[in-house]
């Protein structure tokens, strides 16, 4: 058994006691330094944690290490701290969302033993956090697959949360040596990528599909691994839809920010050439139409999804655009030709973004989306083109 280099005799003794097998808590492991009189910034903080190794970063969610069969398995906290919550918020806003990962491999919660259940999840930090915060007081293993930082369902659709990846992690982590049973609890939404019967053939572990939502995992384990119909059904509540909105805006904004300066240029040709107030007014109005069209398609439609008539998302977006945009055009008192042009642009954007929201819903089928797109995209392009022409021609008629 290899010992970690630990400064201070007391710590070494502590580690020796647990070195054979057992849990080494990280809290208080780092040695305090007697820095004597200090000139700036107060006394020195404690030394580095003995588990920190050159080139590695000790993650804040690791509570302790479990030494077993020569491996140190990280045991994670079951509560989220401020840094976790900030990360969640940023990921929801679309910032840093594409690189928010947990290193794949084996983790644990509580004090897991050879009979503890194994829960499988993705290495997207939100998936990992939402699972571990449900595991307070539960001793279990967490097998984190390398899904390239993507959540379980999307990764299963991309085939990174897959039979092969599951088998690979079972073998890499030598899971069979660590547990007596041969059972993996895979989230139900992972079933798109995982074939239970192939996993059994390839590594001998039986896949048991757990609930859709991690919030039901405690009840599922208590209930002898039986999931109710409710636990097996997907939902798309108001709050679940709300959480998806900021990302839609972020992506749309990143694609079209360059349009706004262009609009002020295109607003310039008017009969009394280069009247600044007129250019300013037209630039603002057209920018407003685009931004509020995006609000209509990417915010109003998702939030009011069950109440807006129509099954097709493009139709829902167009209806919301016509109604909301028409109201705004009427209130703003814009001239008729210019106003109609802006309303067409508004409606086209609203319809397009609502259609784009199909990628975020848990109930739209690819065949259906393709069908509605074939009908809607030509109309959206026509409305956009006609709208822009009318807006350009507006001051001359």
């Amino acid at each position, binding site marked *: 058994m290899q010992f970690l280099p630990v400064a201070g005799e007391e710590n070494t003794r502590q580690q020796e006691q647990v070195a054979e097998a057992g849990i080494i808590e990280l809290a208080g492991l780092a040695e305090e330094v007697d820095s004597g009189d200090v000139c700036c910034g107060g006394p020195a903080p404690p030394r580095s944690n003995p588990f920190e190794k050159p080139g590695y970063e000790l993650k804040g969610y690791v509570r302790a290490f479990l030494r077993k069969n020569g491996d140190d398995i990280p045991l994670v906290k079951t509560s989220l701290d401020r840094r976790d919550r900030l990360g969640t918020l940023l990921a929801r806003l679309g910032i840093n969302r594409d690189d928010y990962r947990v290193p794949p491999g084996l983790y644990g919660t509580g004090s897991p033993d050879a009979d503890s259940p194994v829960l499988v999840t993705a290495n997207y930090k939100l998936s990992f956090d939402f699972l571990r915060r449900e595991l307070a007081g539960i001793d279990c293993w967490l097998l984190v697959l390398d899904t390239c930082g*993507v959540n379980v369902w*999307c990764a*299963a659709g991309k085939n990174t949360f897959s039979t092969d990846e599951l088998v690979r992690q079972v073998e890499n982590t030598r899971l069979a040596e660590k547990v007596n049973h041969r059972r993996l609890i895979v989230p139900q939404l992972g079933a798109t990528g995982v074939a239970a019967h192939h996993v059994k053939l390839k590594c001998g572990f039986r896949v048991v599909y757990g609930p859709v939502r991690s919030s039901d995992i405690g009840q599922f384990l208590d209930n002898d691994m039986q999931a109710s119909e409710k636990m*097996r059904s997907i939902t798309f509540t108001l709050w679940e839809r709300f959480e998806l909105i900021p990302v839609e805006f972020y992506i749309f904004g990143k694609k079209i920010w360059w349009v706004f300066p262009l609009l002020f240029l295109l607003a310039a040709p008017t009969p009394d050439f280069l009247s600044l107030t007129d250019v300013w007014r037209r630039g603002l109005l057209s920018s407003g139409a685009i931004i509020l069209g995006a609000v209509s398609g990417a915010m109003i439609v998702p939030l009011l999804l069950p109440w807006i008539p129509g099954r097709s998302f493009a139709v829902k977006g167009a209806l919301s655009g016509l109604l909301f945009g028409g109201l705004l055009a009427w209130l703003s008192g814009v001239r008729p030709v210019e106003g109609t042009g802006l309303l067409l642009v508004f409606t086209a954007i609203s319809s397009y973004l609502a259609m784009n929201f199909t990628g975020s819903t848990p*109930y739209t*089928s690819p065949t259906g989306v393709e069908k509605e797109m074939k009908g809607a995209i030509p109309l959206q392009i026509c409305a956009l083109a006609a709208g822009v022409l009318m807006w350009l021609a507006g001051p001359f008629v």
Partner: protein
Amino acid sequence: MACRTLCIRRNSLKSLRYLKGVASIKVERKRCVGCSMCLIVCPHRVFAIEEKKAVLADRNGCMECGACATNCPTDAISVSPGVGCASLIINRWLRGKNIDTGGGCC
């Protein structure tokens, strides 16, 4: 009825429904062994067991995620699986129909 109840009803996926009659899912009755794996994995509960065979009780609820077909031990279910996502489909059109899994959707 209380607003809350109304709201829950409206927001459940029993009332949030997508286009009718498009889902490409099929069950081949002869091959089905009635293991009910499809009933377990379906997130929209579209299957039922009748006379020890899986049947499509709610075809229009299917979102073609492919979980049932992947987990069917006798390949009795066929569906053209994919992600119902407009930007993914646009990317695919632009790239000329070459389908790969890293389509940059969600």
